[in-house]
């Protein structure tokens, strides 16, 4: 399909336009704050100090960011192949089973560095399995992956309620959750990393899975831009018919991409389960899969964009708690609005400012050409 918009310089394409869309999203969010009768500038101040004011706050911000890097990468990988995986939420939820099983099995006998790799494999395998069916259905039966992944989110949530209330809950306990893991099921915190910068981690659950997230981001970059599979994925994403003519197996790519995407989403479960709560609780994903959509759109599906976008959303989550404390009228639901606005402006309306910017660049270009000519004459 031809691009109906004029080509822009790279810095405008990758920095100016995303930034502009983000600014508009935040301006509209500011309007909501005004509507509630609070000062948006104060809210922004509380948010930034709440997210970065102290070592502990930074730890929380990065803890949330870890989660969003995983889900953002999950959505982004699917985007590259032209697939929209709304199911990261459910895949992350099911991924939790893999983490919980590894921990419940070995946490009393093995140290964390033995349990962790198994938990990684388990979470990725369970997440991938939950994404396999939608992928297979799209590839072989032609049912749209968007609809099936939405349905699978709901099925996952029912399944997990069943498992946590009936199967994984220890006898005689009321709360729908697994037992608390022993030392082997608890990931070490990254206080040494923070102390390099002279910061104190405090109570924040910033843990080793952050490093795994960075590793995953690098892995995704290698996969998409440095491997044959990545090339095939991007070809299919740009033009399915070109991919077909080139002999790229559409069904195979669809299934593999969905499984990679589901695996990345599933790995998100490591962070809250092994890194913070040391048990699997009901609803531990808390919408992180959907935040991943906003993160992937904002980061333009590139790992180098996803990491800052995830940190921004980590800031919103951690700083948002601080706003809620200072301004009772603004609860954490403000973040959901901002998330929606970012998805709207960075995703659905991403081309809104493009014609205007294109015209601006064109007129600057003409003017400098004209200026050069008059100087020459």
């Amino acid at each position, binding site marked *: 399909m031809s691009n109906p918009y004029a080509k822009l310089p790279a810095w405008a394409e990758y920095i100016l336009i995303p930034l502009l869309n983000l600014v508009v999203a935040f301006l509209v969010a500011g309007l909501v704050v005004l509507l509630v009768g609070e000062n948006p500038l104060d809210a922004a101040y509380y948010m930034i100090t709440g997210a970065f004011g102290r070592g502990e706050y930074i730890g929380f911000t990065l803890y949330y960011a870890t989660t969003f890097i995983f889900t953002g990468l999950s959505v982004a990988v699917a985007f590259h192949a032209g697939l929209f995986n*709304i199911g990261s939420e459910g895949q992350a939820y099911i991924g939790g089973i893999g983490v919980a099983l590894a921990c419940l099995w070995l946490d009393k006998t093995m140290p964390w560095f033995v349990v962790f790799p198994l938990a990684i494999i388990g979470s990725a395998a369970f997440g991938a399995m939950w994404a396999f069916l939608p992928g297979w259905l799209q590839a072989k039966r032609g*049912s749209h992956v968007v*609809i099936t992944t939405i349905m699978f989110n709901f*099925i996952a949530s029912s399944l997990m309620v069943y498992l946590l209330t009936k199967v994984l809950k220890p006898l005689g306990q009321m709360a729908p959750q697994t037992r608390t893991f022993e030392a082997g099921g608890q990931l070490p915190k990254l206080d040494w990393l923070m102390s390099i910068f002279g910061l104190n981690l405090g109570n924040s659950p910033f843990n080793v899975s952050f490093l795994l997230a960075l590793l995953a981001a690098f892995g995704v970059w290698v996969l998409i831009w440095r491997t044959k599979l990545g090339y095939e994925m991007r070809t299919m994403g740009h033009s399915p018919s070109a991919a077909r003519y080139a002999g790229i197996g559409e069904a195979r790519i669809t299934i593999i991409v969905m499984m990679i995407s589901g695996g990345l989403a599933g790995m998100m479960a490591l962070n809250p389960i092994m890194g913070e709560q040391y048990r699997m609780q009901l609803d531990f994903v808390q919408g992180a899969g959907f935040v991943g959509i906003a993160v992937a759109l904002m980061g333009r599906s590139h790992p180098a964009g996803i990491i800052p976008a995830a940190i921004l959303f980590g800031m919103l989550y951690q700083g948002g708690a601080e706003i809620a404390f200072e301004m009772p009228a603004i609860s954490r639901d403000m*973040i*959901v609005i901002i998330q*929606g606005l970012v998805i709207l402006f960075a*995703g659905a309306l991403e081309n809104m400012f493009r014609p205007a910017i294109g015209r601006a660049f064109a007129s600057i270009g003409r003017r400098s050409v004209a200026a050069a000519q008059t100087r020459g004459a």
Partner: protein
Amino acid sequence: MDLFHTIIAILESTIRVSVPLIFAALAGLFTERAGVFDIGLEGKMLGAAFAAGAVAAVTGNVMLGLLAAVLISVLLSLVHGYASITQRGSQIVSGVAINFIVAGSTVILGEAWFRQGGRTPALSGDARFQTVTLPFADAVRDVPFLGPIYSELLSGHFILTYVAFALVPFSWWILYRTRFGLRLRAVGENPSAVDTAGISVIWLRYRAVICCGILCGFAGAYLSLAMSAGFVKGMTAGKGYIALAALIFAKWRPVNIMLACLLFGFLDAFAIRLQGNPLPLIGQVPVQLMQALPYILTVILLAGFIGKAIPPKAGGVPYVKER
């Protein structure tokens, strides 16, 4: 006789929970038949429910509440239309965005305006829809068999319930028997043919999106003004997605939509009834399985194992006039 009354009671609650699904699924029918996919049914319904609850609580007038619901829902539809028709953005991304914006802002605004933990004040009297007793409902109550069916199953619903069921043949008539309906279906299958005939694809799609907004407004108003007395945060609880599932399950046809919504409503009503009571022969069925059943059925249908669900051909694709 006891079993008979139980069945009547289950069917009665089936109708009650199916109504918002019917409104929302018909809403989806109009946009999707015109080639605009809409994942934002959930958000529009929630926004409408909030607007209805808030306005009815402040003014004490149920009709103003309904009007506010329709207005907000149409406004949200126009945002979706602007993003996906005018700006040619991704329809799915835009729908997802609307769901989040509404989910967050109904809580924030509700808490700021009413301070009741995201609820709107409880409605009573003229601020809420009242049930309608059909003529002679009391007189025929004692007639065996048909009496209870008429007086308990058919009578005693809200006016919106009857509107919802009347809308099913009405939507069929609009889509299949009017010029507007023909063009609307055409624009969802082959927009360039419609364009060649000199009819504006953009304006037609906008009208479809507005129809969707109006119907989602009714769905939301039913939730907060009829089914419950006021808005509760997150009260749609996935009904928009079930409606979407019903729409697909019904293969984008009006009468099938009603049947699909009744089926999903029945599963819901049955699951509530079943809680704690084992089924004969099968034994205890987990409630969660019943709750997941509409989604599982839709996935199986989509996979082509129960007939084939073929969406409108141009669905999801923004229309670009040749340059």
